C-alpha cells in the first residue's frame, strides 16, 4: 500500500537533460545544414544550358579540346557524388564560386553585405516582437470586443500587404512627399561608416561615440525596418492572441484564480509566461520570414545587404551569388532556430525531459 508514495521525482538531471537536448538538436542542425548544401548543389546541377558555354563564351565552347580541359579543371567529368563532395570541400574552404556581376569571390561579397542585412533584420524583429506580442496580448485580453476586432483586421492586413509594394509606398510618402526619411542607403552619401566592430552601423557608432553617425544610421534604418516588420507583426499578433487564449482555458489558470490572486497577477504570473514561451518558438520562424522579406525591402531602399545583392544576382542570373545568399540565409535560419529551441528548453522545464 505504500507504492503510491514512491516518488517519480527524485533523480536530478536538469543540466544533463539540457545537455542531452542540446546535443540532439545540434546533431539535427548539422544534418539539416548538410541537406541544405545538397539542395544547393542539386539546384546548380539543374541549370539548363551548358556551363562551359556560360563561362567561356560561344567561341571557346566550340573547341572540344578547350571544353574538355575546362571540364576536367572544374571536376565536371567526375561522377555526381564525387562532384558533391568536391563542392562540399569547397564550401568548407569558404569557396562559393565567383560572382558573375562583381567578378569577386561570392564569399567576399557575402561578408561585405551580410552585416547590413543583419542590422535591418534585427531591428525589424525587435519592432515586430514588441508590437506583435503587445497587440496579440491586448487582443486576447479584450477578446471579441471592439479592440480585438480592430486588431484582427489590422493583423490580417499586415500579413496581406506585399512587402515590396509597401516599401515603395513608404519611400514615396516618407521620403519623396514628407521628407521624414532620408531615403535610400544606410548613411547619407559622403558619410564615413563608423569603425567596423560588429558591422551594425548603429551599434558601431555607439561604440565609437560618433553620435551624429548614430543619428544618421538610425534615421536610415527605421523606415525599412518598420516596413520589413509589418508582415511579422501581423503574424506574431495572431499567434500571440491564439496562444494566450489557449493558456487562459487551462485549469492551472483557473486554479490561479481560485487562489484569490488579483487578475493582473494571474495575467502576468500565470498566463503570459506559458503563452510567450510558445511565442518564442515562432520567433525563429519569423526571423526567417524577415530574411526572406529583406530581399524585397532592400531592393527598394537600396539597402546594401544580401537581399539587394541577391536581387542584382537575379537580374543578371548570377547563380553563384543567389546560391551563396540562399545558403547563408538558410544556415543562419537553422542556427537561429537552434538557439530558439535551446531558449525554449531553458524556459520550459517540460521540454528537457522529452
Amino acid at each position: 500500500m505504500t507504492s503510491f508514495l514512491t516518488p517519480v521525482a527524485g533523480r536530478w538531471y536538469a543540466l544533463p537533460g539540457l545537455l542531452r537536448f542540446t546535443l540532439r538538436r545540434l546533431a539535427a542542425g548539422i544534418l539539416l545544414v548538410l541537406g541544405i548544401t545538397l539542395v544547393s548543389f542539386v539546384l546548380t546541377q539543374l541549370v539548363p544550358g551548358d556551363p562551359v558555354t556560360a563561362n567561356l563564351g560561344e567561341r571557346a565552347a566550340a573547341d572540344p579540346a578547350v571544353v574538355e580541359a575546362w571540364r576536367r579543371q572544374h571536376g565536371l567529368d567526375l561522377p555526381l557524388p564525387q562532384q558533391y563532395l568536391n563542392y562540399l570541400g569547397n564550401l568548407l574552404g569558404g569557396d562559393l564560386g565567383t560572382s558573375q556581376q562583381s567578378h569577386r569571390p561570392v564569399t567576399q561579397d557575402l561578408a561585405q553585405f551580410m552585416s547590413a542585412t543583419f542590422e535591418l533584420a534585427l531591428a525589424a524583429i525587435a519592432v515586430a516582437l514588441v508590437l506583435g506580442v503587445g497587440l496579440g496580448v491586448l487582443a486576447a485580453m479584450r477578446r471579441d470586443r471592439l479592440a480585438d476586432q480592430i486588431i484582427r483586421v489590422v493583423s490580417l492586413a499586415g500579413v496581406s500587404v506585399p512587402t515590396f509594394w509597401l516599401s515603395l509606398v513608404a519611400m514615396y510618402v516618407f521620403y519623396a512627399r514628407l521628407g521624414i526619411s532620408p531615403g535610400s542607403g544606410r548613411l547619407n552619401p559622403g558619410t564615413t561608416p563608423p569603425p567596423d566592430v560588429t558591422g551594425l552601423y548603429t551599434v558601431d557608432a555607439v561604440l565609437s561615440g560618433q553620435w551624429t553617425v548614430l543619428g544618421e544610421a538610425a534615421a536610415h534604418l527605421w523606415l525599412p525596418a518598420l516596413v520589413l516588420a509589418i508582415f511579422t507583426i501581423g503574424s506574431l499578433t495572431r499567434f500571440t492572441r491564439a496562444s494566450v487564449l489557449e493558456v487562459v482555458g487551462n485549469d492551472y489558470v483557473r486554479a490561479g484564480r481560485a487562489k484569490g490572486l488579483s487578475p493582473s497577477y494571474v495575467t502576468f504570473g500565470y498566463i503570459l509566461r506559458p503563452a510567450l514561451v510558445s511565442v518564442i518558438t515562432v520567433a525563429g520562424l519569423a526571423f526567417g520570414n524577415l530574411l526572406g522579406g529583406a530581399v524585397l525591402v532592400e531592393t527598394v531602399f537600396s539597402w546594401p545587404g544580401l537581399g539587394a545583392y541577391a536581387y542584382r544576382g537575379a537580374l543578371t542570373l548570377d547563380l553563384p551569388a543567389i546560391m551563396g545568399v540562399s545558403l547563408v540565409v538558410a544556415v543562419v535560419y537553422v542556427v537561429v532556430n537552434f538557439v530558439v529551441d535551446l531558449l525554449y528548453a531553458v524556459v520550459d522545464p517540460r521540454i528537457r525531459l522529452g
Partner: protein
Amino acid sequence: MSAPSEPAGAPAPVLDVRDLTVTLPRRGGARLSAVSGMNLVLRPGEIVGLAGESGSGKTMTALAALGLLPGGARTTGEILFEGRDLLALPQRALRDVRGRDIAMVFQDPMTSLHPMLTVERQITDHLRHHRRVSRADARARALELLETVRIPGPEQALRSYPHRFSGGMRQRIAIAVALACDPKVIIADEPTTALDVTVQAGILRLLDRLRRERDMSVLLITHDLGVMSSLADRISVMYAGRVVENGPRRDVLTEPRHPYTRGLLDALPHPEEETSELRPIPGQPPSAGTTPAGCPFHPRCAWARESCVERLPGLVELAPAHSAACPVDPFGPPLSGPPLSREVPS
C-alpha cells in the same frame, strides 16, 4: 421548498447555500438553468458529499461559491460563508475569501498545477498574497505543508516543477496548495477521478486526516458514490441542477429514498456479492436545456406516475435530517419498467 431541519445544538454552518440558482447564457439569448433551488449546509469539520452525474450542476455550485462561474452566468439566492453572502460580495472582497478561506482542489492534477512554476511558487503565491508573509516564512510553511501531505524529499520538491511528479503526488501537492492559507473550507471537485486506483485511497485518506487535524470542512464533489461511502458525513445527490436527496451518509447509502439515488447505488459494482449484477440506470441524463417538465427524472424512473410528469416534487423530510424530492418509496413495487433489486450495496 423546505430546507431540511437541523439537529438541535449543531454548530453554525461555515458554508450555507440557500436557494441557489445559476443560469448560463446560450446562443440566441436563451438562458440555460444549471442549478435550481439548491440548498446545502457545510458545518465545521464536516465532509459533505455532492453526488450526481456530470452536468447535474455539482461543479457549477462549487464555482459559484468561489465566484469563478464562466462569463455571463447569473445567480440568485445566497451562499453564506460565516454569515457573509459571497454572491453579494464585490470582486475584490471575494478574492480575499478565495484561496484564503475557501480553497479548491481540482479534478486533474496534471492540468491544475502550473507547468512552468516551481512547487514552492505555487504553494506560496497566495500565501504571500493573502497573509503578507516573508519569502522565508512562506518557504518554511510550504516545507511543512509538503511534509503534511507526505511528499518525500520536500526540500527538493519545493525547487522542482510539477512534471517530475506522478499523478497522485501532484494531487497531494495540489492539496498542499489548497491548505497553504489554512482555509476553513476545501472544495474538492472530483479529486480522485483522474487518478489511478491505488492512489485514490491515499488521497481520500489524506483529506479525511486533514479535516480532522485541522477542523476543516470539505465539500467533496464526485459522481462516484463509492468515494463517498468511506468519507462523507452527509451526502447530497443532485440531478438536473436540483438536489433530489439529502441526508446522513449511512441513511442515503443504505436507505435511499429517491429512485435516482437508488439507481446510482444499483449501478455500482459490489464485489462482495458475486451474484449481484450491475444495473445501469436506463436512458441518459437530460442534456443542457432539455430538462423535462415535472420531476426531471421521470423519463428514466420505474416508479414514475402521472403526478411526476405534471408536478415537480419538493424535498420532504422523511427521517431525521434525511429528505428526498420524491413521493414514492423506491422499495415499493415499481409501476413500470424492470423491477430494481432490493439489495443495496453498502
